[in-house]
């Protein structure tokens, strides 16, 4: 059997492929994105980027009911967007298997909150599996389809950042093609009106009981018996941390299925150990289950609700041991992420800074505009909120409506910004919405979206026209600016913010990291002309720094965007040759 070093996400994709997956639809979100990118490499599977997670999940539901094994992937907050279909798909069940991958981000490497999606499994009454390495990612993805069909339910596959983005050895096998199951019209199963749903709820409750019975004997909930002193109940990546920290000094009960949880099997394990710890990141989900069932365990009282666990934390809390380490007494400045050199968002933010407006922000690379020196974002809550929250702000304080704007990326606007814009037009607030159109979904690593004119496989397709869309929903004032042109940005924004009508400004320039974008030769500073006024530092370009009281431009980073030279009053920044 061939073994490869795969990241967890790649292994999930491989497992789905081997299980005969036919239809996949997702919206990108760190740390889940690569699952669908890897699926797109298999020609045997239809795959797509959907405009948002709700659409993606509904596509998967439709495909599963039609009889194809289907899949969707999202990050934890994406599951909030898709929660509506999730809860009722639990009632309809499926025709062919359906798997939903959800990737949590303990420690918030790339997220706006630290929510624990295991609560969704319990709330929607949907089974949830949790792998602890890449090989399990592959195996559990396949098992999830079997369980989905066995119990007539969608199945959730939960990952966390360290599982999704760690490479480990994964055993591959061949794909087994899955034929389309026959679709039979069955309104009692697929049409959820009260009369049908009341009957289906009974089925759902029985299904949970059946799944608990399954979990009492399933091989993915395994016991590893080493010691009577310390018992550990755990799942996912925390199992790997515990094994490294405690080795043979502890016995382990590893849960491959985190919802629904077995009762008798955990009781029997706990009875064999003097002290039993529950090791789980984020919320006390397994711990509360144990306590509800009268099993005495130590959990969050000794550990933490916040951030990631590690082998070191476990070793320290349970064994009282700590590794020695060395330190210098240097003061080390932080290195926060920044907008890249040549990023088109920079020029637009600089124009906003000059206009001194309140900025209702959104989720994407451009959220980095909240950091110094641009510091031009006042709020950021969730995908699409910039547009709707600006409307709310302007309705609450109409006198200041001419001092506020929303900024939202092209992909985020497609995801859930457009509904907010419809609300602005329909309920007429004097709002200015700026769409930062860099022709790609940037933050998650360059995925196409409905505005880019390309599918997930790079094939040409129809592209949404942001101008026509804005006009169609009822916005009469629609302008397009080039963010590399600071004066144009400032002039147009000043006009649109002052106008007595809702408006949309499209700031259009492709991401500087896109392969097709041609870069100019790097700019350079004429040190005889530079007076060291630091005006060019105000845009926060990582390619510019001060050496010996004069500006210098790092040739390895500069892409020749020319924005800095527009700020220099001494013509000291010159184009490269």
């Amino acid at each position, binding site marked *: 059997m061939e073994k490869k*070093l795969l*990241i967890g996400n790649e292994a999930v994709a491989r497992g789905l492929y081997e299980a005969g997956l036919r239809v996949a639809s997702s919206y990108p979100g*760190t740390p889940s994105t690569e699952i669908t990118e890897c699926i797109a490499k298999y020609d045997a599977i239809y795959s797509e980027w959907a405009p948002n997670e709700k659409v993606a999940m509904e596509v998967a539901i439709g495909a599963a009911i039609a009889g194809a094994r289907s899949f969707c992937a999202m990050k934890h907050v994406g599951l909030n967007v898709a929660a509506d279909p999730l809860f009722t798909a639990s009632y309809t069940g499926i025709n062919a298997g359906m798997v939903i991958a959800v990737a949590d981000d303990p420690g918030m490497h*790339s997220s706006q909150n630290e929510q624990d999606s295991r609560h969704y499994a319990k709330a929607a009454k949907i089974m949830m599996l949790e792998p602890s390495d890449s090989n399990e990612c592959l195996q559990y993805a396949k098992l999830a389809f079997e369980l989905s069909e066995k119990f007539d339910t969608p199945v959730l596959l939960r990952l966390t950042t360290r599982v999704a983005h*760690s*490479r480990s050895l994964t055993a591959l096998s061949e794909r087994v093609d899955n034929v389309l199951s026959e679709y039979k019209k069955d309104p009692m199963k697929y049409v959820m009106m009260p009369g049908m749903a009341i009957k289906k709820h009974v089925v759902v409750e029985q299904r949970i009981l059946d799944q608990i019975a399954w979990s009492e004997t399933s091989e993915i909930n395994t016991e590893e018996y080493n010691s009577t002193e310390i018992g550990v109940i755990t799942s996912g990546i925390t199992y790997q941390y515990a094994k490294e*920290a405690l080795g043979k000094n502890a016995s382990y009960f590893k849960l491959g299925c985190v919802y629904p949880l077995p009762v008798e099997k955990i009781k029997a394990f706990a009875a064999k150990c003097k002290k039993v710890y529950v090791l789980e990141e984020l919320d006390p989900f397994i711990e509360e289950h144990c306590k509800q069932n009268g099993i005495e365990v130590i959990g969050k009282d000794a550990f933490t609700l916040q951030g990631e666990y590690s082998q070191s934390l476990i070793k320290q809390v349970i064994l009282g041991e700590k590794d020695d380490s060395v330190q210098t007494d240097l003061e080390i*400045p*932080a*290195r926060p992420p920044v907008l890249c050199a040549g990023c088109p968002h920079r020029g637009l933010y600089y124009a906003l800074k000059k206009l001194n407006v309140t900025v209702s922000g959104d989720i994407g690379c451009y959220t980095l505009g909240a950091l110094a020196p641009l510091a031009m974002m006042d709020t950021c809550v969730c995908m699409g909120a910039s547009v709707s929250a600006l409307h709310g702000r302007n309705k609450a304080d109409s006198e200041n409506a001419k001092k506020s704007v929303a900024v939202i990326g092209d992909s985020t606007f497609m995801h859930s910004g457009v509904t907010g814009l419809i609300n602005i037009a329909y309920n007429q607030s004097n709002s200015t919405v700026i769409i930062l159109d860099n022709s790609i979904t940037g933050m998650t690593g360059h995925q196409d979206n409905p505005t880019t004119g390309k599918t997930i496989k790079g094939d040409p397709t129809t592209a949404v026209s942001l101008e026509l869309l804005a006009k169609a929903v009822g916005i009469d004032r629609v302008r397009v600016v080039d963010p590399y042109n600071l004066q144009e940005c400032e002039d147009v924004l000043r006009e649109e913010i002052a106008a007595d009508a809702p408006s949309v400004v499209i700031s259009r320039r492709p991401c500087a990291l896109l392969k097709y974008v041609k870069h100019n030769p790097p700019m350079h500073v004429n040190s005889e002309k530079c007076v060291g006024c630091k005006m060019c530092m105000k845009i926060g370009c990582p390619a510019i720094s001060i050496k010996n009281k004069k500006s210098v431009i790092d040739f390895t980073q500069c892409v020749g965007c020319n924005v800095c030279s527009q700020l220099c009053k001494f013509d000291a920044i010159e184009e490269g040759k």
Partner: protein
Amino acid sequence: METKSIMIVGVGGQGTLLASRLLGAALLSENYDVKVSEVHGMSQRGGSVVTYVKYGEEVFSPIVREGQADFILAFEQLEAARWLPFLKKGGTMIANSQKIDPMPVVIGNAQYPDGVLEAIRATGVDLVEADALSLAVEAGSPKAVNVVLIGVMAARMDLPYTVWEKAIRETVPEKFLEMNLKAFKLGFESAK
């Protein structure tokens, strides 16, 4: 054997991910159990980035914590200092002499400390300094800093040279292969 831990630290965009993949491929062909942990997304944008590579008979945790790294391969001086506490007693720090100002320094809110490498050496750790940027430019591109540094570390490890060459062939696109092989060789020879 006991599990060995390597950290690759630097600034987003310096090519740390490719370096960790190359290292993973080399260790794998020597039949070790290998785990590589990467962080994608937000931290790619010029922030401090770290990847972990662990290998041995059976590796459990994919991450490395304070006092556990056998090697730290630092692509930038400040990052070497930032991650120094993760080095094990008796471990080796390989530091590129390149300096990249973080944004708080660029805008004058913080100072880039002087004498970073001297301060690291003064703690008594085994420090290997490399001018990887010059060697990368010599090999043909400043982007080859990552492969130069892998070469420097390879000189301190006991994997056969051919294993590294094979891993480079597997990891690097065809059109950059010759340049990267040269970059590796320059790094390797500079540390011998």
